């Protein structure tokens, strides 16, 4: 009894239907969620190459002790821009890209709720990023680190305009992020297909939904801090200058009140992508949708109560540190439940080792490893030892690269056929996976040891102490393996676009609605849409003899 209904109520009717071969102007003026999503993804890849290039420059400088390949000013600008780029201009646009492209398709809508706001958000992100990078031409990029601590960010200590570009650029990009988040929330609330309840949306959509609230709550704290630092720098106010009564710690509180939620903003969409990937390639429903979905809300709420774990060493006292250590450890509970749920999804399945699935499996192990080092930091006395060393750098690259970026790669391989109509080259993809994974672990596993033997982070060079040179060199080798892998990825994308295998509508035997609409859907996504009655609507269509809505599954 699967009615296929006209989709007129499943979203706005399109303004006009564009033809496929669009010219540049049509891209620029586009308000179509798929085109904007694609532009976000391209922006993200562009900045991944730039930020990765900066990482390679850093690793080159650090390959040997007492190196003079980069000057200290250059190195500091580069690591600051690397961190800022990767967090704000790679992770965020990638999330918004996949979200924009996939959320309407997965909930059976024809577009986002506010198409013009959507375009506005994209261009704000682009302009913010452009402004950040313009600083290289305008007297020096920001060089106070991605968290830009006061009072180093004050005019007395950073008289170049770099920090101003940092503040204004991130404010503008932040406005874009907030606009995008509002758009996602309204879209998911109002544009779901007939019958799809809010507790039935695909997990990726749910994660984007939670993520959007996280963005709405976290970014204003950063915006307030950035506004204050500009007040200080331009109008001689005294927020963060302790000499005139300000407080250096206020900046840290405000930044991390944003910063810790931000790392989960980067992580949650990848959780969503992996949830889709695990259930598709295990050919089984996800294990305990309820747990995965509600634990992500727990993570979102908890993430606002743990920011002091970045400030354990500033001397707030044992009481404050102890409570925040406890809160930070608590996050391991909802996260651990997720990891176990994904393992339980694979258990008893019939696992197809496609490239997205390989990324997902590598992610599980790497994320557990990075999570355990995170819990290690939550043990306050150990954090006193390890904070601000390469051990921290290793922890968060295991999370950001081995967690979030692996998720984005998995999403790229998983949805590439939907976006372009072609499969992303399997052979090159396998090369890319192994090179990147091995390179990644080579780079960052050894950095844990570097931290343990006493190497602080953010040093432009280091003395020739025993072991430092060798390990840094190994780390640099790994980084160049990742660089090679990234080149292979770019080649693979170009090759697949030109001469890839034509994918068809449903290459992975998917279970959610984005595989129901055409490959490379036109201006209007759905002409017809099935009545949604379960969490796997496309499965129900394919298996009328055993649909989900007859047998409750999770």
């Amino acid at each position, binding site marked *: 009894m699967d009615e296929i209904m006209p989709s007129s109520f499943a979203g706005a009717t399109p303004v006009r239907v564009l033809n496929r071969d669009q010219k540049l102007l049509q891209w620029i003026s586009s308000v179509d969620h798929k085109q904007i999503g694609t532009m976000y993804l391209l922006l993200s890849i562009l900045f991944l190459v730039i930020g990765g290039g900066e990482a390679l420059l850093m690793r080159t400088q650090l390959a040997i002790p007492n190196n003079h390949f980069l000057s200290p000013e250059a190195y500091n600008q580069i690591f600051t821009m690397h961190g800022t780029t990767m967090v704000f201009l790679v992770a965020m646009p990638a999330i918004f890209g996949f979200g924009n492209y996939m959320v309407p398709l997965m909930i059976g809508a024809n577009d986002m709720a506010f198409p013009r706001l959507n375009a506005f958000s994209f261009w704000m992100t682009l302009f913010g990023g452009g402004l950040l990078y313009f600083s290289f031409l305008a007297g020096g990029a920001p060089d106070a680190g991605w968290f830009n601590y006061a009072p180093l960010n004050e005019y007395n200590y950073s008289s170049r305009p770099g920090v101003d570009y940092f503040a204004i650029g991130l404010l503008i990009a932040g406005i874009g992020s907030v606009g995008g988040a509002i758009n996602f929330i309204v879209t998911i609330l109002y544009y779901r297909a007939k019958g799809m309840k*809010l507790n039935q949306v695909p997990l990726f959509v749910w994660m984007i939904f939670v993520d959007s609230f996280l963005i709405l709550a976290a970014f204003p704290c950063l915006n307030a801090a950035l506004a204050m630092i500009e007040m200080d720098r331009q109008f001689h106010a005294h927020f963060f200058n302790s000499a005139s009564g300000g407080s250096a710690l206020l900046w840290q509180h405000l930044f991390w009140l944003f910063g810790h939620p931000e790392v989960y903003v980067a992580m949650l969409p990848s959780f969503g992508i992996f949830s889709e990937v695990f259930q598709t390639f295990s050919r089984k429903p996800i294990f305990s949708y309820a747990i995965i979905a509600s634990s992500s809300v727990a993570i979102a709420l*908890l993430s606002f109560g743990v920011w002091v774990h970045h400030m354990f060493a500033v001397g707030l006292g044992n009481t404050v540190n102890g*409570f925040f250590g406890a809160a930070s450890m608590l996050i391991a509970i909802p996260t651990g439940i997720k990891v176990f749920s994904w393992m339980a999804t694979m258990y008893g399945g019939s696992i197809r080792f496609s490239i997205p699935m390989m990324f997902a499996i590598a992610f599980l192990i790497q994320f557990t490893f990075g999570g355990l080092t995170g819990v290690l930091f939550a043990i306050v006395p150990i954090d006193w030892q390890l904070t601000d060393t390469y051990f921290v750098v290793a922890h968060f690259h295991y999370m950001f690269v081995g967690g979030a970026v692996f998720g984005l790669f998995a999403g790229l391989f998983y949805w590439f056929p939907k976006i372009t109509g072609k499969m992303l080259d399997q052979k090159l993809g396998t090369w890319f996976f192994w090179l990147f994974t091995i390179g990644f672990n080579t780079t960052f596993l050894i950095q844990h040891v570097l931290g343990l033997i006493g190497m602080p982070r953010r040093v432009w060079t280091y003395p020739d102490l025993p072991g430092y040179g060798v390990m840094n060199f190994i780390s640099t080798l790994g980084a160049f393996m990742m660089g090679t892998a990234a080149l292979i990825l770019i080649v693979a994308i170009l090759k697949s676009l030109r001469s890839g295998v034509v994918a068809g509508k449903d290459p992975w035997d998917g279970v959610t609605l984005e595989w129901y609409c055409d490959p490379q859907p036109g201006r209007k996504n759905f002409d017809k849409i099935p*009545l949604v*009655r379960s969490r796997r609507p496309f499965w129900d269509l394919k298996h009328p003899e055993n649909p989900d*809505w007859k047998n*409750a599954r999770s």
Partner: protein
Amino acid sequence: MHSLITYWHLDILMVGFLISICLAYYLLGGFVENKKLKLFMAGYVLLILSIASPLHFLGENYLMSAHMTSHVILILLAAPLLVLGIPDNGDKNMTRFSAWLSKHPWLPWMSGVCVMWFWHIPVVFNRLFLPGSPVVGAAGGIPVLSDLHLISLVLTGILFSWPVVGPVRQQRLPTVQAVLYLSAACIFCSVLGLMITFAPLGIYTHYEHITDRFGFLPMIRGDHGISALIDQQVAGLIMWIPGCLIYLTASVWLLMKWFKEKNNQTFLTSHKTEL
């Protein structure tokens, strides 16, 4: 000086309050259903613990952290349990009241949050303990202000919990709204906890200049090393982290129930209903 365990205390006003709660429960049709009665009794025991036990004694006389602990127990544990204990006997007024509250959720929300904030405004807070308003444990007199403070916290706590765990199941807030309702309250509790945690000494003066009438001060300051500053920080942090954890647990519990609902649905239900 006796052992701490022996410092239990109730005055006439609080006894009256406790009795009237039982009375109200009876009038609302309580003492019938066994499962509900257990919940109510659990809440009642917690209520007594936080207004009559040595915890309360410590909170009145020595430790701000104990004071906050009893707040958290009162508002976040006792009050919701009392509400959970009320059976749904299909009474029309009850249904109407629940529906009205859920239609205007900002009312119970504001009452819960504002009353809690009100009692922590330093002026008000310090006034609670002034000699003019006798302290529990002193001979004679009813500590009216202090009692009012407890009673108002319990009542607004009950009001606050009503839309989330109220007796009429159909009239509770929809899950997503309930989670937002709880999270928003959690944020404002956190802000209060944060303000107290990072406040310098000299704001909440009662606990800094303790007249050690019962002789426990050396034990607290000396043996346990709880200085006034640590005490104030613990107080703020208890409001902040365990407090938030309770809101969070409730939210996740609601979500789990919602996600585990049977999703079989009849043909063509309106898909906007749960907004």
